[in-house]
């Protein structure tokens, strides 16, 4: 009933729980990766003496490169898993970040 202004790909008023579940899983995955990224780049880049509360220049540059490299590793691992038939492990495509 398009007079309600919904596009064709949008079903009627109810909630498609499968679609919501998929979105929640994707959200959990992104949150998980983000938390690991924060923790790993903290270990790699941030000194532990805590003489001051600001990121210094060296730490800031390190963090930027750390995130970039983490994304490259994510890409390589994703390609690797797909080449090994990672789809078999979950039925779906590999999540792109």
């Amino acid at each position: 009933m398009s007079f309600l202004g919904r596009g064709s790909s949008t079903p009627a008023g109810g909630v498609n729980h499968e679609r919501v579940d998929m979105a929640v899983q994707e959200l959990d995955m992104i949150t998980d990766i983000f938390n690991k990224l924060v923790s790993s780049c903290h270990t790699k880049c941030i000194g532990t003496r805590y003489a001051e509360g600001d990121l210094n220049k060296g730490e800031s540059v390190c963090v930027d490169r750390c995130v970039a490299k983490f994304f490259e590793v994510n890409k390589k691992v994703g390609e690797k898993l797909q080449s090994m038939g990672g789809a078999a492990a979950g039925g779906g495509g590999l999540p792109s970040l």
Partner: protein
Amino acid sequence: MDLSQMNSAEQAHMSKIIEKKQMQDFMRMYSNLVDRCFNACCNDFTSKALSGKEEQCVLNCADKFLKHSERVGARFAEHNADAMSATGQK
């Protein structure tokens, strides 16, 4: 994440779930922060009181961690945007 393919009931449902998760994320971030800064700054247990030096370390640690997270978040968003436009994903 792309919510545009959802109908309004689904979007409303997702909003509630996201709101709940944000609260959980905040709480986990908070307990991680306490644990991280405690571990980095407290190594002397000859006293149960926090020394002035330890307290300053904890405050700097919390400050720095939040700034670090913010910076990672900004870079993360940029890379995500790049990755999405590269693959033509909506």
